[in-house]
Structures are given as structure tokens and as C-alpha cells.
């Protein structure tokens, strides 16, 4: 199929129109400012005024809609980060982020794909708790609609396949992920996620945590101990259960290894019951 050639000037017009409507709004003053003076000349010339509204004024409708839509999506998908930063700062951050990393996907789920990296490299927004919160909320977004493979059911396996479970790599579900935190972010996110009015004030204190995020009906978080995390990291890296356990002696203190020895059967049974592993 040969591509159809666009009429002369259409690509340039759309690029200019797009640049105009994505011109950042100035947020934070007494009122939000629209920067019509930054609209490309081509876009300004292309549109007609009507009645009391000039062409540029009519373009502002799209400019406002663009930012209102994308800021709303980000506010809904990052409730914890929004609470941590405060709404005005959050909107300023998102404006800066999208100006630097405009959407490259038809699907809005990908709008925040570069957010964690942006926060890491931004002078103004590089606080570690914000970056960690962004990572957590990205994991929630991913877990929500990632694929779910048929779950491992050891009882349904043949004796040979069941025996091979120890020595073959285990596949974790695509929606499953590990998360380590230095503040109680998972717990705070649970509290603020439905607080649309930002009535809850978040006060973070150092509180390291380890979690597995996964979907079972909804996205959930399961608290992990340090030995459990170490074991799951090795499984997620593609090691078999046997190899993952064997290698732990180098990574863990003797006391933690004793915890592994005592708990591994019940841990594994619980993780299987939660559907974390895919059938071989």
C-alpha cells in the first residue's frame, strides 16, 4: 500500500497549530496565564476571528483544553505525588514535564512514561521522595492493565512438571513488580488516592518498606521481608527456585538465611495462591 501524500502545507499548519495549543500555561499566580504571544505566527495567520473573538482568542480554547485534559489525567494517576507536592507545584511540574516530554502515544497510559527520569534530572523537582512516589504510581498504572498469563497451579501439573518447578526458571506475571521505599509511600497512597479535594495532609517520615505490587481484581501491594525481597529479586531475574535459594547464602546474613529455610515453603505457597507466577 503506497502512502498517500498530504497536501502542501498541511504538515506545517498542523505542527504550528499543535505548538500553539501546547504552549505552556503560566500556573501559580492569581490567575492562570495564557501565552498567546508565544503562538507560532503561522497558526495565528491561519485562524479566523468571529464576532468579538479574534483568531488567537479562539485558539486559546484549544490551548486551555489541552492543558486541562492532560493535567487532569496526571492528577488522577498520581494522587500521592500530587499530595506530596501540593496541587499548584504538581501542575507546574507536569507542565514542565510535558513541555520537555510531549506525548508520543495515542494511549494516555503512556503519558507519564518518562516522568521518573524527568524528576531525576530536573533541578527543581529532584527530591528523592517525589521520584520514589512517581515510580510507585507508575507501577500502579502499569499493573492496572498489563497482561495476566494463566496462573501456576502446582496441583494441576504432572508429577514430572511439578518436580521440574524447582529447577526451571519461574515466570512472574507481567503485572507483578517489586517496589522498595524509604518512606511509607504505599501506605500513604492508599490513604490519599480517593482524596480528590486534597484534604489530607501527608507528612512523610523515614520508614523503609519492601513490596510486591500485583493485580488480583484490583492492584494490590503485599509487604515483604528482606529475605523474601532478596529471593523474589532473584526469581524475577530468571533464576529457578533452587538456584535463587542457593545463591542467597552470599547475599544474606545467617539469621536471614535461617528465616528463608523456615519460611520458603509457606512463602511460595502464598505467592502461588496470589497468582504471582505464570503456568509453565
Amino acid at each position, binding site marked *: 500500500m503506497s502512502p498517500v501524500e498530504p497536501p502542501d502545507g498541511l504538515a506545517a*499548519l*498542523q505542527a504550528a497549530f499543535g505548538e500553539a495549543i501546547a504552549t505552556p500555561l503560566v500556573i501559580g499566580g492569581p490567575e492562570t496565564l495564557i501565552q498567546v504571544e508565544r503562538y507560532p505566527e503561522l497558526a495565528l495567520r491561519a485562524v479566523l476571528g468571529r464576532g468579538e473573538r479574534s483568531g488567537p482568542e479562539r485558539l486559546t480554547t484549544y490551548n486551555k483544553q489541552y492543558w486541562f485534559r492532560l493535567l487532569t489525567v496526571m492528577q488522577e494517576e498520581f494522587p500521592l505525588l500530587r499530595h506530596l507536592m501540593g496541587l499548584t507545584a504538581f501542575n507546574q511540574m507536569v507542565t514542565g514535564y510535558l513541555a520537555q516530554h510531549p506525548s508520543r502515544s495515542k494511549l494516555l497510559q503512556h503519558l507519564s512514561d518518562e516522568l521518573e527520569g524527568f524528576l531525576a534530572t530536573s533541578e527543581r523537582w529532584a527530591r528523592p521522595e517525589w521520584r520514589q512516589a512517581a515510580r510507585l504510581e507508575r507501577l500502579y498504572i502499569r499493573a492496572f492493565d498489563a497482561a495476566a498469563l494463566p496462573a501456576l497451579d502446582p496441583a494441576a501439573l504432572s508429577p514430572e512438571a511439578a518436580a521440574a518447578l524447582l529447577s526451571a526458571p519461574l515466570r512472574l506475571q507481567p503485572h507483578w513488580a517489586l517496589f522498595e521505599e524509604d518512606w511509607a509511600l504505599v501506605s500513604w497512597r492508599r490513604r490519599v488516592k480517593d482524596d480528590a479535594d486534597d484534604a489530607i495532609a501527608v507528612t512523610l517520615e523515614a520508614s523503609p518498606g519492601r513490596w510486591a505490587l500485583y493485580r488480583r481484581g484490583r492492584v494490590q501491594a503485599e509487604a515483604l521481608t528482606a529475605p523474601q525481597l532478596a529471593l523474589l529479586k532473584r526469581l524475577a531475574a530468571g533464576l529457578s527456585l533452587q538456584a535463587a535459594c542457593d545463591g542467597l547464602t552470599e547475599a544474606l546474613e545467617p539469621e536471614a538465611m535461617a528465616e528463608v529455610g523456615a519460611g520458603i515453603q509457606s512463602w511460595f505457597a502464598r505467592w502461588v495462591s496470589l497468582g504471582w507466577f505464570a503456568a509453565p
Partner: protein
Amino acid sequence: MPLDLTGAIGVGLRVPHYRHIFAHRPDVDFFEIISENFMVDGGPPLENLERILDRYPVVQHGVSLSIASAEPLDFAYLKRLKALARRTGTPWVSDHLCWSQAGGRHYHDLLPVPYTLDIAKFIAEKARVVQDYLELPFALENLSSYVSFAESEMPEWDFYREVVERAGVNMLLDVNNIYVSSVNHGFAPLDYIADIPWERVLQLHLAGHSEQPDGSLLDTHDKPVKDVVWALYREVCDRGGLIPTLLEWDDNYLSFEETHAQALLAKTHRRDRVAG
């Protein structure tokens, strides 16, 4: 057996209504889904869709095709759209006569183009390819728009007709959008519908809109259908007959029952006009 939605009244499927729909199984002719919300690998969106498909006909309506973009068609997107269409059994697939991406950048909005013959031909070629690829009737929806272009050579309705007839595709006529654009651009809504090729209109949309302080209108889908739009709908039904009609409601949600009741008003508005 092909799905017959003649005269059917549907509602846009939205997350706040799932609980009611699953609990009470209301008698709804069909639901319309936003295709992109279900173009995912798994999770609640697809699980909920399967539950809806068990009981209701579903038609697919997209927002991201960007057929009027100067950029080529995105066949990876079309492949996923087609796979979803096979899953839903939709009798047709629709999207908007608009663009939403340029230079690889996506604006997540429904943006207008100048109404020129060259652009109509360009879009028509792409629309023909989309319909052939999807192997389903493809319909384009008219926009609500807030700007007009100096370069335009014809009114919107001539442009719309030019595109669909050249392409051999269909129309999803949004009655509220006609009214919103008529106020924003100063034309008579009846002029818009005077020359519509009704045999190509697969579906109608109804929705509420909001008035801005300067008198212009925004297509907000967050209010009841205005009386002036119902009046236009009656004119449309006079001309087009029992076209499947869908109510869109996307913000400030009402209960499902209230939303469905608003949609069903369409039957009362057209009954006295079409019955005879």
C-alpha cells in the same frame, strides 16, 4: 446473523456506571465503547468488557485515529483496533473527522482542518484504506470546533460529504456537534443537514454542551441535551429515519438510570415525527 440496531437507543459505556449495570442488568439496546480504553493487554477494562459483551451489543467509537493528520496511518494502532473489533463484534467502527497528532507528537484532542478539496481528497484516501483494512463499515463523525481557517474553501457539511462519498465510507452524525459548531461559526444547523446522504449515516450522537461567557459553546458532554438540540434531532429523524442513537455523557456523571432515561428521551422526540 448481522446485528440490527435500527432505531436502537444506546448509552456510552463509562466506568462510574459499571456497578449498576452489572448488578441490575438494565434493558439497554446497545453500549458504545471508546475503543482506546480497551486497547490494553489485560486487567479490569477487558474483564468488564467481557461481562458487557455477554449481555449487550457493543459498537466501537475511537478518538485517536487522527485520520486528518498529515502523517501516515498507524497500522500498529489499526491492527489493535481490528483485533478489538473482532472481540466485540461491533457492526461498524467509527472515529472523528479530525487530527490529533503532528510530528510524532500527540495532542489528545479532536482538532479541525481547513475545508479544502485537496484535504478532503487526502482524508478520503486514508479513510478508504482504513475501511478496507478493518473489513467493517467505517464511519467518520463531525466535530464540534472552535476555530475556522482562512484557507477553507467550502462549508463543513460539503467537506464532510466530500470525504465520505469519495472514500465510500459512512457518517456518524453528532447532532449536538452540529449545533455547537453552528453557534461558534455562525451557520444555520438546518443548512448542515439539508444535503446529508442519509443512506450513509450509521449512527447519531447526542450530548449536552456548555455556554461560555462570550456566547460560544463547548462540547462538554456533562449536561442534559438542550432543547435546541432535541429540536434539531427531530429534524434529523424526519430526514434520516430510525438511525441508531447514542447519548454521550463524560463528566459530572448522573446515575446510570438517569443517564439512560435521558437517552430514552430520544424515542419520545422522534416517535411523533417518524411514526407517520
